């Protein structure tokens, strides 16, 4: 059986003009030769930093954007040549606050899209109730969307994407803006769809979400795929590491450089948290550098310190920083 999604050498550049008087044109290479395949029934994650080209890739796969070069097929159908046939088989959720008819109720938004997707009118109301229930909007469907909260809008986007039972579902940051409980429910919904045979391509900035849901993940940075594999395989890339995480208050360049210089340390990342910072030190598995790290931090207030196994997030960060530095 052919794969659900086949992307081959996909390229997309945007051109923009600047300035009112002296018009200058510039080109952004958003996607630079991306290739991957997603098998039927697989849940595939596309992870990458802001501006990496995830949304651009999904827009091409959902026929909303033409590629500059390369090809993409969904259910064996070319997204440029067989646009209409692709559209009947896919659903997509871009989410955000916009993209809904504010003056209509949630129910009427769904009704309109049900007509556009030619959902069988028999059983339509039951189907609408079903998706409303899935996303937890039941009871509020009669209210106008202009009165919906951000998370409710996001749920309505998801409901709309599911309405016509698509074979392949594209979810671009589906859990953005929804509360923790709803996000958990949404993950369950997605997992359930995949159990029923739906193919899902998901982007998210939440690593635990990707780790929990995805069968396979591609990491994209600056328009190119820098790694691909199961969550376990990606973690394996940093499995030779041990991670030392130190809570520090007001660390400077000099201290970071001193930590970097310790023998056995492979990478050092500083994350800003609310009041403190987290110093994340990767080192060779056989070594315990905690003592040296604390020594190198002489003069900086140090909070908690912990040594742990690398997570998907560690793997992701090390892949992305390597790609962005390179």
């Amino acid at each position, binding site marked *: 059986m052919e794969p659900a999604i086949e992307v081959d050498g996909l390229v997309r550049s*945007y051109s923009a003009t600047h300035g009112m008087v002296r018009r200058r044109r510039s080109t952004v290479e958003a996607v630079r030769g991306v290739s991957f395949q997603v098998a039927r029934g697989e849940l595939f994650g596309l992870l990458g930093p802001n501006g990496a080209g995830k949304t651009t890739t999904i827009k091409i796969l959902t026929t909303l954007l033409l590629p500059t070069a390369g090809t993409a097929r969904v259910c064996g159908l070319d997204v440029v040549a067989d646009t209409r046939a692709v559209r009947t088989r896919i659903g997509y959720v871009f989410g955000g606050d916009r*993209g809904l008819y504010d003056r209509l109720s949630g129910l009427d938004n769904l*009704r*309109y899209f049900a*007509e556009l997707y*030619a959902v069988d009118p028999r059983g339509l109301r039951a189907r609408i109730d079903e998706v409303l229930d899935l996303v937890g909007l039941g009871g509020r469907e009669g209210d106008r969307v202009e009165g919906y909260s951000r998370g409710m809008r996001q749920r309505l986007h998801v409901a709309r994407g599911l309405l016509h039972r698509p074979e392949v579902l594209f979810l671009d940051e589906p859990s953005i803006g929804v509360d923790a409980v709803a996000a958990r429910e949404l993950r369950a919904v997605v997992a359930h769809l995949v159990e029923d045979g739906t193919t899902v391509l998901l982007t998210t900035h939440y690593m635990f979400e990707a780790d929990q849901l995805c069968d396979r993940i591609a990491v994209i940075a600056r328009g190119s795929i820098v790694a691909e594999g199961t969550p376990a395989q990606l973690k394996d890339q940093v499995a030779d590491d041990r991670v030392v995480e130190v809570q520090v208050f007001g660390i400077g360049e000099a201290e970071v450089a001193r930590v970097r210089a310790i023998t056995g340390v492979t990478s050092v990342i500083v994350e800003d948290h609310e009041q403190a910072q987290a110093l994340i030190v990767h080192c060779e598995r056989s070594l315990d550098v905690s003592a040296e790290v604390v020594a190198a931090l002489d003069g900086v207030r140090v909070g908690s310190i912990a040594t742990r196994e690398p997570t998907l997030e560690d793997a992701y960060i090390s892949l992305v920083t390597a790609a962005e530095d390179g």
Partner: protein
Amino acid sequence: MTARAWLRLVIVGGRISYRALFNWTSPLMYIPTLLVSPLLGTLFFAYLGRYAGGRDDTFYVLGNGLLAVAGPCVFGGMMALANERRYQTLGAVLGTPAPRGAILVGRAVPYVGNGLFTAVVVTTLAALMLRVSIRIADVPGLLLAALAAAASCTAFGLALGAIGMRVRDVWVISNTVWVSLWLVSGANVARSALPDWLEVVGGLLPISHGIDAARAIAGGSPAAGLIAREVALGAAWAAIATLLFRTFERSGRRHAALDRG
């Protein structure tokens, strides 16, 4: 897609999209904008005509009665497409497999009905207030002329709306067009009295042939040819609207413009 689904998209879909996209659905907007204003306009020109020794009241009642379709049809047709931009729903709609013809027809139908309704209300009220009598036998013909004007005017509005899918400030064009129709449609000034080029412009815009037809009917002369002209003009505008819609859909996919606000 089956014929039945196509029809549902036109009728059910059209009705929902009307509520979604037409800004003046509430009575508080609808009555003053689409009924009271054109009625006052009719009275204004009729009294001006009496005072300045212009045409008789029938001339103004029929002219302005038909011109009343311009509100719901030009503006409605525009909103039916251009407001997708306001809600940023164009990407969602165009990403569906729905046949574009059914989307466009479905969006047009409510405004054609609306246009016919406003024309009937304004003409009737103006005729009552000015004591203009309309022969019962003329009513079917007049309704047909109003229907033709409403249809061609909606097609024209959709063409402007299609431009609005791409250009943010089409509302400036529509306001200008609307005001110029007072002049060039022949509702208040016989088109033959206009400079040649304005007469030509009026003939290419919707409503003018419909008005000619209505006056011919009231005057007892044949009007079928005039109604046919209005219909043909409407068909031409519908073709232009479809072409623009398709063109902007295609170029939107090329230039990533489908989700711009």
